[in-house]
Structure formats: C-alpha cells, structure tokens
C-alpha cells in the first residue's frame, strides 16, 4: 500500500471542517491543532504533493497518532486515518526522514522479542509448550512483559472449562509485528509476517491474547502475501463458547468494561467480553464512550514509547469517568490497555478479563 | 467656576423652545427628589433638597442632543428623567451643582407598529401604563409589568434593566429590546439596528441598557411584543416552609413550564385586612407557612398541561392546593405593593425600604432564612417575597421597616439595615440589586466583583463622556 493510494482520503481530510477532531485521543491530550486527524492528514497531503518538504520535523506529526481509529467512527467519507498515517510514516522511513526517536527501531524490536521469549520460557512450565496441538496460544509481548500472570490465568480458565487441547506456541516471535506497521517499517513487517505465517500454518486455530496480533494476522498478513490458513481468534472470542461452563465461586460487585480498540472497533468483538465478564461481575458499568466509540487507553501507535506524557494524558482522560464514581475496577482484555491504564488509575484496579475470571473461579 | 447662567438659559431655550424650559421653583422642587426612601426620610425633618437649576422637556432626540452639547460646553451635570420613580436616587440631583434635568416625557409617541413582526418602535418617554394600554387596544402586550407601571417610563425601565412581575415568562425589559436610539454626551444620536438576533459583535444596546443614564439618554426603542392572551389561569399552593415551595417552583421551571407569574410569599390569609374579625392570632406554624402563587397564559391546552405539571410537582413536595382564589386575588391587587411603603415614610421616626437581591436556587432558601432572622433580631419587620423566578434562581424582595427614637436615629437604622442586608446577602452567595438598579445608593453596598463591573463602567464613561456630564455619581461614577 503505497502512500499515493491514500490520495483521495488525504484530499478529503485536507478540506474537511475537522469533524472528527473531538474524538482524537492525541489531539485531545495535546490540544494542538496540528495533531488532530484532519491536520495530520493535511500535512501528509502537503508532503505528498510536494507543497511542504518532507523532513523529520514535518514527518513528526505522523507519529502523533495512536492508531485507535476512533476518528473513523465520525467520518462520513469512510476515511481510515490510521493506515494512511502509517503509510505516511513508511514514506518518511523510505526517504530517511523519520524522526530521531525511531532510529534503530528494528534492533530494539528484536532485542525485546528475544528477551521476552526468554522470559516466557522462564515463566511458563514446559508442559504447556507442545509442538503438535490443534489450538496454539500465541502469547504477546506486552502480556509477557507487563502481565505475565495473564498467561497463567488464561491457561487456568481454559483448564477449568475442560479445554485441554490448547498449547502455547513455541516459536521465535512473541509479536505479530504491529510495532513495525506503526513504525512504517513495511519491509521488516513483511519479513516477520511471512516468518510467523509459515510457523503457524500447522495449526487449526490460533488464539492470541493481543487484539492487535489477531487483527494483523487476520487482515494485514494476507495483504502482505503472508496469509494464515488457521483461524485466528482472540482469547475472548475463543472463550465465548465456553462462557456458560465457567463456574465462579464468588463475584465482584461492579466494574467498568473498557473496550480495547483492536478487539472492539477493529475486530468488532463487543458482546463476548461482556458475556464473559458477566460471569464474574454483578454489575457491568459502561463508559459513555464504549463499543464502536471506545476511547483508547493511549497505548497504541507507538505513542506510549514516543510520547509517554501524551499517552499518560490519554489514559487519564479515559479514566476520568471512573474516577467520578466509587467503582473500584476496570476490566479490559488487552495487556497494553492494562499496562497503560494502570499507570494512571490510582486506587482503581485495572485487571485483565482472564485474570478476573481465574481469580473468581 | 462661575457659570453664566443666563447665557445657558438662553441656549437651552433655543434648544427646546422657551415653553419647554423651566427654572421655576414649581418645577425644580418637583424634580428635586425621586422615590429613594433615604432621601425622602431626610427631607422629613431636614430642608427640602435643592432641585436642578433647569428642567427641560425636549420633544425629540435632536433636541436632547442640543441640550447635551450645551451641557458639555459648560460641563453641567445632566439627569435623564422619566417618571422620577427611582428607588435608589437615580433621578434626583445631588451635591451643590447646577443640574439640568432632561424630562423625557414629551417623547411619548408610538413611532411605528409592525404587527406582522410584532415589534413596536416607541419613544422612551412614554409612561408604562400608557404604552401598555395603547398596545392592548391593538391586541398586543409588552409583557413588562413592574410595580412602577403607572409612573415609570420606558426609558427609565431600559436604563435600569427593570424586571416586572411577568419576568419569569417575558424576561427583563432588556430582553424585550431589539434596538434603541440614544443620544451620547457629545450630542451624537446613535441607533442600534434592529434584528431578531445577530452575530455581528457585542449587542451594543446593552451598553446603554442598565447604564442608568451615565452614558447617554435613551430616546426610543424597538420592542418585541406578544398577543394579548385569550386565556389566563391562576393557581395557588400552600407549603409548611419556604424551601419546598422553592423546590416546586424550581422543578417546574426546569421541566420547561413558563408561568406568567410565579411568586412565593406569606400566607395571604394571615393578612389582617383579610382575616375574619374573631379569627385567632396566627401560630408560629401559620407564620412559617408560604404560598406559591401562579398565573399562566397561552393556548388553553398548553396552560392546562403546565398547570398539571406544576400541580404534580407541588403536591409531591407537600404543597396543598388552594385553587385559583389566592393568586387571582393577588393579581387583582398587583399594583398595591407600590402604595404600601409611603405610610411608613411619612412619620419622622419610621424607616422602610425594599432590599432586592438575586441568587441561585441553592443559595436562595438559606438567604431567605438568614435575612429574615437578621432583621427580626434587630426588631425590624420584614416581608420577603420570592419573585422573578427563572431556571437558575430567583430574587428575594425583602420589604423592611422599623421604628427608631428620632429622625436621625431612623436614618442611622436605615443605613445599618442596608449594611446588614448586604452582609447577609454576600455571605450567602447572593447578589445585591436585581430590579431597581443602583442609582446613588447601591454602588457602595455591592460585592467586590460587582464593584469591579461598575469600575469598568467608569472607564467606558471616561471615553464617551470626558466632561462627566451624564448623571455623575450614579453607579459609582464621578
């Protein structure tokens, strides 16, 4: 997908009266006109048309996007800002104009991958890694790094409903490559996608705890020439069939449910996590911005790495509504959300849905 | 500075015609006082205050302009004068200066009547009741009915941003004004243009509305009208306390009901004149009872629904329906309040006035109780009415009166009462002044924010009125 393919979208945004600006987590956090979706797209367009020179400075605004896609919910032209801006990032990378913060990104990516792989084997008993299994559990980087207990909890919940045919995928990678996409490193992503696709093609089903991994494998991999024949599901989608079998010993009185962007808006999975959560929580509180309009935790688009202050403000904004109540818990189904929200959540506990279920068994 | 008075007299005569100019004591004495109780009290034992040097009756804005140019040239202070019914000394000369009073009442014509848009263009010297009657004759009403209806002029109302008994439905008089003509201190006649609404800068008429003649003389206005109602309904509810009565009113307004009249006062059945001869003395419970009086107008089906909504809310808060009679009776006597104070002012040792303040609903019941208590502690009598109710709050009209040992002591008590009222008001989150303007009296009593707003007015006045001729001393101006 070359940059120019987004011409129509970029042109439309250039002349649009900023109608989606109120949704943009980055724009709301920075209060900066140049980082609302319309302005980022307009800048990409100016660069595309050669009206403004592409430099690390002009390219910098492309990185002020958490890729949540909420703006698209308020667009009547069906413009997808995320892929367009990620393509603009790719353009910057190709021209060597990516901002300094992106240097040595590939090296850092693989260094982290390797250390987390090590961590994974350290954390999880070897009996869970099985070469030949019907269903492979593809664990994700943020889960291993920030919420390793989610791995145990997921396995525990699966066990409790009698699913014994899931094995942890014992591969070389713990990430489907979303960071590469968001970094504009398309050739790195292609390489990784093909690697992973070939490794996973033996399974019937693949389950991931990271919604972005699911979306990448299901929708982006085929476009990169790396289709995966197996069905790729998020843990929550997979578990949904077993929801009635989950027997909890106690329930939590109340909690908010936070829709992870990729699980909700991108994959369209809204009811399954609520059904599962309903097994363990008596009253599910909804955010005003929920489901298709779910507001990002601030973790996507590499914003958490490049602009930690902005990412923190986005999390704060997401939690404002919870803070006005006495509800002590926010439940999500994504390790990135869990990490990003819990940094700003004070006394409110942010917990992964799988952990919550495991705890109440 | 010695003022060449005969020269000025000659010029003024030229401006308005000799027949419309007077320096006769008959006229200057008549224009020496307005209805500020403090000044009236002072005049009981003291000397009758010196009136203006000249009274002029211009017949048109151009003549007003001429007068103001003369005043500017000689730096003479000018008072725009309507009905002279100011409760705050806004229309009476002060200090030892040669004042010109511009009596606007010759400018009393309806200039144009647009029955399609329901807008009247009328001169500002017209007395309220006359305007209303002339409108009524054509099937319209202004909807502005203050107690001063029979004496005040449109110009006076606009200058003080007056609120009438129907303000819950029709707003203050400034809300009815679509445009106005005013003469600025240097004699320029300016017209703010008429539009239903606009977005072309600040609403400039509002610089003169409420400015109490300190920036210019309002000579005409365009006002929005409505049709005389075919139906008017009344209703009354009795509550054990004032707070639930306020609650019922507040909730009704939030629900979107637009009552014509909505006021809370003491149970009128306790009024001596209304009581049966052998009725027992009222108990404390009787005395704390409050009655919500309501009137509605408009299409009959709509009025019925509004009545129903209020009835439901009032009943839910413990209100007992008293039917139409008490409210209808009040309506019949709606101008009577204007007459009640005078008897209290004619005796040397008595004092009386009317504190009016505005507050949001949450502050209101506390203010009501505190004000009542503070006055009663001093042995002063009060009657507090909740009026001018709107979505976010209402005003308290607190009539007070008391007795002192002497005329001097009465004056002192009067001042003390006002200081007390201001203290209670500010401590309780209220704002002093809601209906009558500030005049000579209120500026010093206001809270700091309100004082700052008047200081801003002084700044504007320096620009528009460098000679300081327009009603100096009013609203804290010099």
């Amino acid at each position, binding site marked *: 997908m070359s940059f120019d393919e987004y011409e129509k979208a970029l*042109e*439309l945004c*250039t*002349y*649009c009266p*900023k*109608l989606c*600006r*109120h949704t943009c987590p980055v724009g709301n956090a920075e*209060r*900066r*006109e*140049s980082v609302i979706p319309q302005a980022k797209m*307009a*800048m990409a367009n100016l660069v595309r048309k050669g009206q*403004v*020179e592409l430099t690390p400075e*002009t390219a910098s605004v492309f990185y002020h996007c958490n890729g949540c896609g909420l703006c698209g919910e308020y667009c*009547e*032209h*069906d413009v997808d800002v995320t892929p367009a801006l990620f393509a603009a990032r790719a353009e910057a990378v190709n021209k060597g104009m990516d901002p300094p913060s992106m240097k040595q990104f590939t090296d850092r990516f693989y260094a982290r991958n390797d250390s987390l792989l090590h961590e994974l084997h350290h954390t999880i008993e070897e009996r869970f890694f099985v070469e030949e299994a019907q269903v492979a559990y593809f664990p994700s980087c943020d889960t291993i790094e920030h919420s390793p207990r989610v791995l145990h909890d997921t396995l525990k919940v699966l066990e409790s409903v009698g699913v014994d045919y899931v094995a942890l995928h014992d591969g070389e990678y713990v990430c489907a490559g979303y960071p590469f996409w968001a970094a504009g490193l398309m050739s790195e992503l292609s390489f990784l996608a093909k690697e992973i696709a070939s490794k996973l093609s033996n399974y019937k089903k693949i389950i991931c705890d990271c919604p972005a991994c699911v979306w990448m494998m299901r929708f982006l991999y085929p476009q990169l020439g790396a289709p995966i024949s197996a069905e790729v599901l998020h843990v929550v989608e997979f578990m949904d069939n077993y929801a009635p079998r989950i027997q909890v010993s106690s329930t939590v009185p109340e909690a908010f449910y936070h829709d992870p962007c990729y699980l909700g808006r991108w994959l369209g999975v809204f009811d399954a996590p609520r059904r599962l959560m309903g097994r363990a929580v008596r009253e599910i509180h909804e955010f*005003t911005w929920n489901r298709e309009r779910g507001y990002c935790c601030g973790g996507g688009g590499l914003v958490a790495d490049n602009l930690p202050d902005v990412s923190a403000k986005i999390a704060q904004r997401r939690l404002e509504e919870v803070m006005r109540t006495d509800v002590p818990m926010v439940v999500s189904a994504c390790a990135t959300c869990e990490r990003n929200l819990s940094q700003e959540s004070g006394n409110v506990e942010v917990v992964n849905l799988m952990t919550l279920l495991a705890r109440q068994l | 500075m010695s003022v060449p008075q005969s020269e000025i007299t000659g010029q003024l005569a030229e401006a308005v015609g000799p027949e419309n100019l007077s320096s006769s004591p008959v006229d200057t004495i008549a224009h020496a006082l307005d209805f500020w109780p403090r000044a009236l009290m002072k005049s009981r034992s003291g000397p009758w205050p010196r009136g203006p040097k000249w009274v002029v009756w211009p017949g048109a804005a151009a003549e007003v302009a001429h007068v103001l140019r003369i005043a500017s040239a000689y730096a003479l202070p000018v008072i725009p004068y309507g009905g002279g019914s100011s409760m705050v000394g806004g229309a009476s000369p002060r200090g030892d200066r040669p004042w010109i009073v511009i009596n606007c009442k010759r400018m009393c014509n309806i200039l144009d009547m647009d029955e399609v*848009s329901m807008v009247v263009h009328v001169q500002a010297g017209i007395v309220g009741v006359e305007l209303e009657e002339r409108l009524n004759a054509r099937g319209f009403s202004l909807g502005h009915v203050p107690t001063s209806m029979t004496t005040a002029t449109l110009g006076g109302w606009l200058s003080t941003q007056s*609120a009438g008994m129907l303000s819950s439905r029709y707003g203050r008089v400034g809300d009815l004004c679509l445009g106005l003509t005013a003469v*600025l201190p240097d004699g*320029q006649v*300016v*017209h703010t*243009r008429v539009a*239903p*609404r606009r*977005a*072309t*800068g*600040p*609403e*400039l008429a*509002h*610089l003169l*509305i*409420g400015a109490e003649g300190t920036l210019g003389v309002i000579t005409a206005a365009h006002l929005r009208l*409505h049709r005389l109602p075919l139906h008017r309904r009344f209703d009354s509810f009795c509550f054990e306390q004032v707070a639930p009565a306020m609650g019922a009113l507040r909730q009704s307004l939030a*629900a*979107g009901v637009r009552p014509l009249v909505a006021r809370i006062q003491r149970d009128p059945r306790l009024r001596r004149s209304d009581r049966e001869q052998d009725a027992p003395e009222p108990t404390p419970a009787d005395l704390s009872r409050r009655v919500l009086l309501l009137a509605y107008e408009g*299409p009959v089906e*709509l009025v019925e629904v509004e009545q129903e909504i209020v009835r439901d809310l009032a009943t839910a808060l413990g209100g007992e329906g008293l039917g139409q009679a008490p409210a209808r009776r009040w309506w019949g006597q709606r101008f009577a309040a204007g007459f009640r104070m005078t008897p209290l002012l004619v005796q040397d040792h008595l004092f009386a006035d009317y504190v009016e303040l505005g507050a*949001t609903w949450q502050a209101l019941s506390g203010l009501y109780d505190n004000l009542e208590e503070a006055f009663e502690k001093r042995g002063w009598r009060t009657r507090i009415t909740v009026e001018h109710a709107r*979505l*976010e*709050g209402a005003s308290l009209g607190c009539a007070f009166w008391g007795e002192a040992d002497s005329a001097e002591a009465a004056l002192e008590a009067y001042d003390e009462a006002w200081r007390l009222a201001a203290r209670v008001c500010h401590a309780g989150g209220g*704002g002093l*002044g*809601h209906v009558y303007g*500030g005049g000579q009296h*209120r500026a010093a009593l*206001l809270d700091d924010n309100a004082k700052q*707003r008047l200081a*801003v007015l002084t700044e*504007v006045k320096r*620009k528009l009125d460098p000679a300081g001729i327009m009603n100096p001393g009013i609203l804290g101006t010099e």
Partner: protein
Amino acid sequence: MAGSVRILQMTAPLTSADSRLAELRDALPDLRVSNHVTDRIAYARDLWPGGQIEKLAGKHAPEPPACVVWPKDSAQVVELVQWAKAKAGVGGDPVVLVPFGAGSGVCGGTMAGAGSVIVDLKEMDSVVRIEPHNNLVRAQSGIIGWHLEDRLNMEGLTLGHFPSSLMCSTLGGYLATRSAGQCSSLYGKIEDMATTMEVVTGTGEVLETGRDMGGGVGPSWTQLFIGSEGALGFITAATLKVHPAPAHRMMRGYGFGRVSAGCEAIRRLMQAGLRPAVVRLYDEFDTVMARSSAEKGSEADTLLDAISGRVKGSGAMPWLKRKALQMVLTRPDVTNRLIEELAPRISADGCLLVVGWEGDKRLTEVQARLGHDELMRSGGKDLGEEPGWHWFKNRYAVSYKQSKLFTSGAFVDTMEVAATWDRLMDLYEGVRKAIAPFAFVMAHFSHAYPEGCSIYFSFVGPATDPGQTRQQYDRLWRRGLTAATRAGGTISHHHGVGRSKAHFMTEEHGNSLRLLQTLKATFDPASILNPGVLGLS
C-alpha cells in the same frame, strides 16, 4: 529549528518568528509555546472558505503565525497580555494576540496575519462544576462543545446547544461569535445561555462579567463580551444554563407550496406562544438536498441527481451528470433560473418544513399537537414523522459535504442572515438574486423567533481557476451582503463577522459602531487583541 523547512507559498520570513519565540520564552518561561512548522501551518487558517479556495491553489499558510502558546490558566493569559502590552509600549513589531479555540470559524476570525501569536485556549478545557439544582454549569472556554455536552449528558443534563460544528468548536468560540445551535428556538442562542463569564481584557484585568444568576446592577458586560471575537478580551470561562435532558422528542415534516407560505406558517407558529425545538424550512432546491442527504456520498452527486436525474425524470447517465455538473459550476445563473422554473417539479411536496419538539413528555405532546393544528391551518401538508426523523438522523451530515465539493473542484460556502418578518421575503429574494450569477444557491430558514427568522444560504460555485475563483467569490460576498443590508437584514445571524465581513460593519451598525469602538478603546487600548476582526484595528 523551524528555519530548515521550506514551505511553498509561505511568504513570512521564519526568522522573525524565532525571535518572537525567544522573547516569549524569556519573558514567560512557564508558558507552553511552539513555533514548530507543523503548528504554524495548522494554525495559519480557520475554515473560512475563501481560505479553502486559496488552499486549492496551494497557498496553505501564506501568512503563518509566529508561534502558538497554550496558557494553562487565566493567570497565564494575564501574563501574556501584560507582556504584549509592554511590547506595544516600546515600538518595534507590534505583538498581536489571537484567541484560538478549535479553529472552525468560517470568517477568518483567527487569521491575524504573519507574526501573530496564536493563543490556543484548549489547555483550559475543564468542567469546573455542574450545579444540577441551579441548572448551571461552569466550564472553561477551551472545552470542545461535544465534550461539554457529553459531560452534561452523564448527569442527565443538556446545554441544548447543537451547532453543526459541535464536534469541532469550543465553548469560547461559541461565546466569541454569538453561536446558534439547531435547537435555538427552544434553548436560545449562546447569548441566552451564558449568565456570566470570566474574561481577561486587553488591559490585563480579570473581569467576571456578571453573576451566576445573571442580572445585577449596571450594563451587562456578559452581553458586551459575547460576540467580541477576541477583540476586547479572552473569554476564559463561563457559567451557562443547562436543562434536564429531554425525556421526549417528536419530529414531523410538513410541505408548503411556496417558501413564502412556509415562512408565514413559521411566523404564526412562533407567535402563537409555542416553543418548538427545531424549525427548519427548506426552499425548493434545498428541500431536495435535505431529503436526499441520507445516502452517504457527495453533495455534488446529490446535486447532480437532483438536476439531471429528477428534473429529467429518468435515471441519469453518468455523462449527463457530468454535463450537468459543468453547467452548474460554469453557468450558475442559468442553473438558478432553471431551478426556479422547475422548482415545483423538483420536489413534489413543495418546500419541506421540519418541526421538532422536545422536553417534558406532556409539554412536548401538547405543543406538538397545537403546533400541528397551527401548521395545518396555515395550509401545510402533513408529511408525517419520516422527514422529521430523517433530518434528525442526518443533522450533522451537511458539514461533511464540504470536502467532497472542494476536492471536486467547487467551492461551497454559507451566508446566514436574518431580519424581522416584515422584511424577510425581501431579504430572501434580494440575497438570492445577488448571489445567483456567481454560484448555485439554495436556502433554508431556521432559528425562528416571534419577531423574525434567519435565512441560511448555501452556495456552490466553480473553483477551477484559482485566481478567478477568489475574485468571483469575493464579488459574491460583496453583492450578497450589500443586498442583505439593503433589505434591512443583518449580515450575520450566528457565524460572526471575523475578517471576511469586517468591511460591512458600518452598513450593519451605522453610527452605533462608535459604541463598539469605545469598548475597544476601553478594553484594548494598546490594540494587541486580534486586530482586524469586527472592523476594529
């Protein structure tokens, strides 16, 4: 760091910006400031269509601001004003401070030219307090309208202010321009909602313009700062009336043979003492647009469907559509005449009037019934609920059409005028005739009052030749506004004046403009606040 970037068409030297930035950093070290090139481009324009036309020609930021600052509270605004005042006293380049909300104005109100300092107020975007018992909210002015409404909805309240810019404009912007929303006939315009505001004047004074409850002694500074477009001070916070979120809503459509009959019906409705939430009457052609806007897609397409499809009475072939587009855009005068001729056939039900009622259930129902009777007595044809709900569902759709039109080589703009009822038809005809030679024009009547109504003209013109387009565009506006003032109308009902209409302020206000100049001299004696808007220097 900005100096290294080459921006085509950017005329202002970037170095001056750097020096201004350095001065500011020196004077106000705690103030957030940027002269990042992307910021200077993003803040260089608002949504004035005249600027959009220039963008089509590649002029994205011909006169970029020197820098952007984000004060975090009114104290910082005061510091900023003090600094600018001090600079004004010593000569050199004058400092110009421009209050900025979300930049969605359509009159160039924030385009103060090269070297200006944009003061983005969005750091000041909190809801200070909600007082349900007083039906009041206090909010800082940088909050985006949608976010404020969202927050109120959480408490079961509504502000009742729904401009079609709700998603992309701030409270401060509403107040500064006297904004109106779609439900203005029930909840009023923004000037009816605000009871008091905090402003920082050009003298550096912080002034609370009124009381929470409104009213008080002396002139209403609230009314004098509302609409001041940043020329008198910064509006930093406001207290506004709020209402219980409506428990009930009813929508209905009515057809009227002619625009004038529809207007007469609205007049009678408003003068009957009823308060509909929504009143919108579309003229013949706008009716077609309004009823078809359900389908996503370009206004150009709808336009073409309407002209080539419906008028010809058959499914239009693509080539015919394109031909029609060319005609629309190159010979608007012909098209407008054609439309007039064909008006009755374009829309079978004549002009559409959408009426909506909301609030308490009983009040809503009785008013809807009374309103219905009144409209039927006025000769309306009952079209049922569907056209009403159709409008409601698509009430924000119209703004989305702008970019489609610009990107297909046309310009689009709107002119919102108003007059009392006696002059309304003259205003309609006058402005329509004045614009017709330059653009394809349609109109709707919304924001009705007992004494008058506003007219919202939308027009589409050709934007193929950049240089000529701007000339034609300016001519259109000059003629349109001249016609409006001649007919006794106001040049703006709710968009404001900004810079694009500034030269019409004398026609608009006559000699009462002096009062505005007096306010300017009082509140901004050093002329540091947004000079150029409202015709003030």
